[in-house]
C-alpha cells in the first residue's frame, strides 16, 4: 500500500511523467469497471443525473402547471400524461423528472458543504492535535450523541422548509462525519514512516500536506462522500415525506410519497412511481459506493 500510494501521490503531482505507469487510480478504475453491480449503479446514477440536468428539456409539462380539468388521472388515461396527474392536476411524469433534480441537488450540495467545512476542520484537528483536536473531538461527540435526521427535523421545524434550508440543515450534521474521518486519517498518516522521512529530509509543512497527506486521505474520503450523497437524499426524502422539507410547488419524490399516502387506496400510481424512483436512486448510489470502496481499497477484499 505504501509504495502504491506513494506512486499515486507522485502521479498526482506530476501526471505527465507517470502516464505509462500503473497508478492507484488507473487500477481502481479497472477494478471498478469490472464490478458488474458497480457498473449497474453507475448507469442508474447517470440516468438520474441526466434527468436532473436536462429536466427543463425532458419534462413534457412545467412542474407547477395545474390542469384543473385533469385531476388524478391514471397513467395512460390521457395521452398528454403518460404517468397520469396528481391530486391537483399536475403532470406526474414532469414532477418525477423535476423530483430527480431536487434529489440530486440536495445530495451533491450537502456533501459539497460537508467537505468544504469538514475537511479543513478535521484536517486541522488531526494534523495540529492539541487544543484544536480537543475542541473538534468534543464537538463530534456531542453531534453524534443525537440522530442526524432528528436534528435536521428540529432545525427545519424552526427555520421552515424549502430546498436551501433543507440543504443547510442536513449539512450541519453531514460535515461531522467528514471531519471525523479526515481527523482519523491524518492522525494515522502523521505517524507513517514516509511522512516522518519527508520531515527528516526537510520537506516543508506545505509540501508534506500537499504531497503526502491529502493524496493519501483522498480515497477513504471519496468513499465517504459516495455514501454521504444517498444519505442526504434519503434525509431530504424523509423530511419532505413528513411534510416539512421541500415546499410546494417544487417537486420532491419524498413529498410525493407523503401526499400519495392519503390517496393510495385508489390512486396507486401516485405512490408507486416516486417510491420506485427513491429506491432505485438509493440502490444506484449504494452500488457505486460499494464498488468504489472495493476498487480503491484492495486490502478490504479477501
Amino acid at each position: 500500500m505504501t509504495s502504491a500510494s506513494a506512486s499515486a501521490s507522485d502521479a498526482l503531482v506530476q501526471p505527465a511523467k507517470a502516464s505509462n505507469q500503473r497508478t492507484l487510480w488507473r487500477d481502481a478504475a479497472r477494478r471498478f469497471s469490472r464490478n458488474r453491480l458497480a457498473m449497474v449503479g453507475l448507469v442508474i446514477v447517470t440516468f438520474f443525473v441526466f434527468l436532473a440536468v436536462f429536466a427543463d428539456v425532458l419534462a413534457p409539462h412545467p412542474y407547477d402547471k395545474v390542469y384543473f380539468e385533469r385531476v388524478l388521472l391514471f397513467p395512460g388515461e390521457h395521452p398528454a400524461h403518460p404517468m397520469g396527474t396528481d391530486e391537483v392536476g399536475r403532470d406526474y411524469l414532469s414532477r418525477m423528472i423535476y423530483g430527480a433534480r431536487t434529489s440530486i441537488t440536495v445530495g451533491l450540495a450537502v456533501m459539497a458543504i460537508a467537505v468544504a467545512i469538514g475537511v479543513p476542520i478535521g484536517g486541522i484537528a488531526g494534523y495540529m492535535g492539541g487544543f484544536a483536536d480537543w475542541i473538534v473531538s468534543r464537538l463530534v461527540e456531542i453531534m453524534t450523541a443525537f440522530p442526524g435526521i432528528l436534528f435536521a427535523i428540529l432545525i427545519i421545524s424552526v427555520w421552515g422548509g424549502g430546498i436551501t434550508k433543507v440543504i443547510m440543515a442536513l449539512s450541519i450534521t453531514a460535515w461531522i462525519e467528514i471531519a471525523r474521518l479526515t481527523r482519523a486519517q491524518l492522525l494515522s498518516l502523521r505517524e507513517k514512516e514516509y511522512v516522518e522521512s519527508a520531515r527528516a529530509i526537510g520537506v516543508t509543512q506545505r509540501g508534506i500536506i500537499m504531497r503526502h497527506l491529502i493524496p493519501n486521505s483522498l480515497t477513504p474520503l471519496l468513499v465517504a462522500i459516495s455514501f454521504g450523497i444517498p444519505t442526504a437524499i434519503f434525509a431530504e426524502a424523509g423530511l419532505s415525506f413528513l411534510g416539512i422539507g421541500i415546499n410546494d410547488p417544487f417537486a420532491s419524490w419524498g413529498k410525493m410519497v407523503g401526499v400519495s399516502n392519503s390517496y393510495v387506496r385508489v390512486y396507486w400510481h401516485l405512490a408507486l412511481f416516486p417510491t420506485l424512483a427513491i429506491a432505485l436512486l438509493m440502490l444506484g448510489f449504494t452500488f457505486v459506493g460499494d464498488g468504489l470502496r472495493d476498487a480503491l481499497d484492495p486490502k478490504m477484499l479477501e
Partner: protein
Amino acid sequence: MTRYLLGRLLSLLLVLFVVSVVTFVLMHSVPGGPFDESKGRLPEAARANIMRKYGLDKPIYVQYWNYMKNALRGDFGIPYQQPQTTVTALIAKTWRITLQVGAMTVLLAFGVGISLGLIAAYNQNSWIDSFVTFFAMLGFTVPNFVVALWLILVFAVRLKWLPMGGWSASGDCLVAGRFFCSDWIMPVVAYSLIPMAIIARYTRSSVVDVMRQDYARTARAKGLHERTIMFRHVFRNALIPMVTALGVIIPNLLTGSIFIETVFRINGMGKYFVTSIFNRDYPMIMALFLLVAVLWGVLYLLTDIAYTWIDPRVRLGAKGGNA
C-alpha cells in the same frame, strides 16, 4: 471500570445539557410562536396575559432554568395542542404503543436477521449467501416508508389481505388462539427491515470470522458433530461482536418509528412528534427530544456494559477499548 463508567455518565450528562440548551434556544428563536396572529387576532392585553401565564415574557435563561427545574421533577409543562392534559400524560398515553411496535420489531429483526446470517455464513459463497447479502443491501438501502407503501400497495390495496393502517394496542384481537393482530403485520415488517439487514450482515461476517478461528478448527479436528461445532463453539462466540450491531440499530429504531407511525396512522410518540412540529408545540417537542437524547445515551452506555459482560476479553477504559 467504575471510573470509566463514571466518566461516561458525566459525558452523557454534558451531552444532555448541550442538547437541552440547543433545543431550548432553537425552539424559542422561532419567528411566530403558538399564540401569534395566524390563528386569529388577540387583544394586546389577552396576549400579554397568555405570555405571562406560560412564562414566555421572561428572559430566555430564566425560562430555561424554570423549565429544567420542572422537567427534572417529571413536569414538562402543558402541550399547546391539547391544553387540557400535560405533556407527561400525553407521552404516557402514547409511549406504550411505540414500545409495542418497537419490541415486536426488535424480536422479528433479531429472529430473522440472525437466522439469515447463520444460513448465509454456513453456505458461504453459494447462491443462498449471495441472496442474503443482496437482501441485506436492499433492506439497508431502501427507506422504510418506501417499503411500507409497497406493502400497503400489495397487501392492502391489491390483495386486500391486511388493513391499511392502525394499531390494535389493546390486543383484543388475540382471542381464539391468534398470536397477532392483522394490523400489526405490515408496520412491524416494514420497520424491521433495516435492523434485520444490519443484523444479518453482522451475523454473517461474525460467524464466518469465528469459523476460521483455531478453536473452531480444533473442534472439527476432534471430530465433533457439525451442529455441535456450530452452536456450541461458533455461534456463541459470534454473538459477541453482534453487540456492536446494536449501536447501529438503536438510532434506526429511534427515528424509524416517526415514519412508520406516519405511514400507518399509528397514534404513538412518533406521530405526536410530527404533529407537534406542525403545531410549533414547544413543550411537547422539547420533551420528546430530551427523551430521545436520554434513551440514546443510556442505550449506548448499556451496549458498552453488555460488551464487557459478554466478553471478558474486553476491558472498558483500557487503552484501545471502544471508548
